[in-house]
């Protein structure tokens, strides 16, 4: 009994009996010669089958995703109705090269996972795949560069032509079953194992086209060259004929049209192949064409092949079969050529950068001296420092940004800026004493010198907050960064609607900025609600966690933006309450705390999944965080 992953040798006559056995049960789609080229077609005689082809003109994927197929049957008698139309005949794709097996695996990912496509799946489940290792690469192919010249999965059987007999690797139970039924597999000899290895290695050495860089680098490389002149230059000769996408095994885009019978009683909804290289692919009824020029279509296809598909599905978007390069009459379609051209440009740019035309930022890690002008006690463990640069310059920050503050000899730490840039040439940092650096800071008095780098980070999105009602939620020392924004809003009071502040602290003695808060209420018309987790004898206000303040609020969700700052635990609960109030993810802004050691996107400590909080953050909307699972 053949086992999955097992390799057995079958004789040449046994391959014929496998072919003929399968022919009795299903359509056999194999490679035949036509007009001096190779094509996949129905094969009824084993003699017609080509097992030493280089590449076929069209990929075998057309037997899983036909050029034209019915997706719905429609009836217009009485109330118009539609029903899904799914049918598939059992078939075997016989002699599929590994690069095409990889393409089919991509289609499986696209059509069989999220929003499972009934037509594709029905056909796929009725399809056996007998793979065949490619020993005669096409002159335009570059499968090894794309990692697709060998297949480990995606087939039921995989053959290698050893000359005398075929090494046959079993890829599935169905593969094992047909092998057992139609052929007599035997354990390969050491010679045969060595011979297969040598054949495959020698074939890989014969690919003439190669990628000059590792394919893993493609997404980033392309991204950096989105605006490159290359796309315009290269696409000049493009005929917009669609040949490249029509012969591509990883292309799967389609169009859908209704076709009605002349009697107007019945109809069909038909899907046909479509492709992004065709002029009208991205046009809408109003006439706007969102990829109206050849260059943007050309770039989109190359990005699709080297970046988008990989990022979206985790599999390469180009399998290096070289069909498009063959089909393209002006000879501009080969992704390998485009990838290499872009890689070469990048290399030249890198070289230029390394040669030293780009000046180093000498002061990147050097703090600038600032004087402590004033120190104010905020609470038992918190102090406010007013600072100014000794050279007279201003910080030039935006609300929500942070600085790296140094006490030389002790260290450096990120601290959010607590004052608004609208409050003069000095700036204020409110600091809780929690570690070595902050302890050292707390010991300083007016007149002392500290080091400052920054400002860093993105700050609060003022443009998104303007003209809106604002709901600020400050938990504990979340008020520190939020204060910079509150002051800014007060100083531009006419540009904002209602301003509501919710402030929660653990206990009454941890409340800070009391006098200032009173002036916010009195002078700026700010609605202020406060709670403490635990009261004491003198406390007459609300007791309870900050989330308890939210349900009773009267807000107009459509015109409200909320800004939440607090410890991580607070976010989860506050977000839930805000959503209940009808706020969308885009309307919930947060400032996240992370260990931002360098502030310049290098040290790596502040990463939230792949995002650097010190660069893209620390302020995010909840919508920004959808794909950042580490965030809250």
């Amino acid at each position: 009994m053949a086992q999955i992953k097992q390799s057995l040798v079958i004789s040449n006559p046994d391959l014929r009996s496998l072919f003929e056995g399968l022919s009795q049960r299903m359509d056999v789609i194999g490679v035949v010669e036509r007009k001096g080229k190779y094509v996949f077609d129905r094969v009824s005689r084993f003699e017609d089958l080509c097992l030493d082809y280089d590449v076929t003109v069209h990929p075998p994927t057309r037997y899983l995703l036909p050029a034209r197929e019915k997706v719905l049957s429609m009836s217009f008698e009485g109330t118009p109705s539609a029903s899904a139309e799914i049918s598939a005949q059992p078939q075997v794709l016989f002699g599929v090269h590994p690069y095409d097996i990889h393409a089919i695996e991509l289609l499986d990912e696209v059509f069989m996972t999220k929003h499972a496509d009934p037509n594709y799946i029905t056909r796929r489940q009725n399809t056996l795949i007998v793979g065949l290792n490619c020993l005669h690469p096409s002159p335009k192919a570059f499968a090894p560069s794309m990692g697709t010249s060998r297949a480990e999965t995606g087939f039921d059987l995989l053959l290698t032509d050893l000359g005398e007999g075929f090494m046959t690797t079993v890829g599935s139970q169905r593969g094992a079953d047909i092998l057992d039924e139609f052929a007599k597999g035997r354990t390969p000899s050491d010679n045969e194992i060595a011979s297969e290895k040598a054949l495959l290695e020698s074939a890989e050495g014969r690919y003439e086209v190669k990628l000059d860089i590792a394919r893993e680098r493609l997404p980033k490389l392309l991204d950096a060259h989105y605006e490159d002149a290359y796309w315009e230059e290269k696409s000049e000769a493009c005929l917009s004929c669609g040949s490249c996408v029509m012969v591509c095994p990883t292309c799967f885009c389609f169009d859908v049209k209704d076709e009605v019978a002349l009697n107007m009683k019945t109809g069909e909804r038909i899907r046909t192949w479509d492709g992004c290289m065709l002029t009208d692919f991205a046009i809408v009824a109003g006439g706007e064409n969102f990829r109206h020029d050849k260059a943007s279509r050309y770039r989109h296809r190359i990005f699709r092949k080297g970046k988008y598909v990989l990022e979206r599905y985790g599999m390469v978007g180009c399998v290096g079969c070289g069909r498009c390069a063959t089909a393209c009459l002006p000879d501009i379609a080969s992704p390998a050529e485009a990838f290499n051209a872009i890689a070469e440009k990048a290399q030249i740019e890198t070289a230029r950068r390394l040669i030293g035309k780009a000046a180093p930022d000498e002061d990147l890690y050097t703090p600038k001296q600032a004087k402590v002008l004033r120190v104010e006690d905020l609470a038992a463990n918190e102090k406010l420092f007013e600072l100014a640069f000794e050279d007279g310059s201003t910080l030039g920050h935006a609300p929500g940004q942070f600085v790296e503050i140094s006490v030389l000899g002790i260290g450096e730490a990120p601290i959010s800026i607590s004052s608004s840039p609208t409050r003069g040439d000095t700036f204020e940092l409110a600091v809780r004493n929690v570690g070595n650096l902050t302890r050292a800071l707390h010991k300083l008095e007016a007149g002392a010198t500290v080091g400052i780098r920054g400002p860093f980070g993105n700050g609060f999105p003022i443009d998104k907050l303007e003209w809106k009602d604002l709901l600020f939620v400050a938990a504990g020392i979340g008020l520190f960064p939020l204060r910079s924004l509150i002051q800014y809003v007060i100083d531009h009071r006419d540009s904002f609607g209602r301003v509501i502040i919710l402030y929660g602290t653990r206990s009454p003695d941890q409340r800070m900025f009391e006098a200032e808060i009173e002036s916010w209420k009195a002078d700026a018309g700010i609605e202020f609600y406060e709670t403490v987790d635990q009261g004491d004898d003198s406390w007459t206000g609300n007791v309870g966690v900050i989330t308890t303040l939210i349900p009773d609020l009267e807000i107009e969700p459509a015109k409200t933006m909320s800004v939440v700052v607090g410890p991580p635990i607070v976010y989860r609960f506050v977000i839930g309450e805000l959503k209940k109030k009808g706020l969308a993810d885009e309307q919930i802004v947060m400032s996240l705390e992370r260990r931002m050691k360098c502030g310049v996107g290098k040290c790596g400590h502040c990463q939230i999944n792949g995002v650097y909080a010190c660069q893209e953050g620390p302020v995010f909307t909840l919508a920004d965080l959808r794909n950042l699972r580490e965030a809250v």
Partner: protein
Amino acid sequence: MKPKVAFFDFTCCEGCQLDTLNIEGQDLVDLVSAVDIVEFREIHTGKADHYDIAFVEGSISRESGIERVKDIRARSDMLIALGACAHIGGINCLKNHLEMDEALDIVYGEDAKYYDTIPARPVSAVVPVDFVVPGCPINTAELVRIIKEILLGKTPELPNHPVCVECKMAGNVCVFEQGKTCLGPVIRAGCNAICISAGRQCWGCRGLVDDPNIDSQMDVLKKYGLTVEEVVEKFKIYNTYSEVAK
């Protein structure tokens, strides 16, 4: 009320009308029950004053044709050019490369004095045309589709991609890969690449796509061994009237 439909011919072989009459089976039954064919010289002698849809085959190549097609236009709600001659002038325009006297002499010899002729032109060069059914001859499936879409109140549309798309869908080996040349990359699809599927090549009977990259197509044809003259000749067969051949 079934729409009143009429068919007319100008300078042409009437092949597109013949092909219309070749519509077979259920389609034919459904077609004649969906529309009223009030005028169609090839099948009956009926006449009408007004047409909902007038199909016009043929290019305009005589002074008298100009007046006649204007009259048809005036009496029609919708006028549809049927086939390559009406759509793009077609092969009739090959004579436009000659002086008209010379053309008359070649064709009619001594009897030339009995005839008049003007440079051939598509119907749209004389009167406004609402839609076209391209091809030499037309693809009757496309004609049926266009009629159905008009009956449904849809605006019929032609594919704006070249023949290559349908040729690839048909699974053909590219004509260029066979060592021959083809106009497919710049010619409007809708024929299902019938000529290439039959072992031939595209001559361009359906006219150019909206925004053809002619320079590149010329380069391609030259790269595959044609001289400039041969390239232009290739375009002239059906597309003399277009900018390309000028």
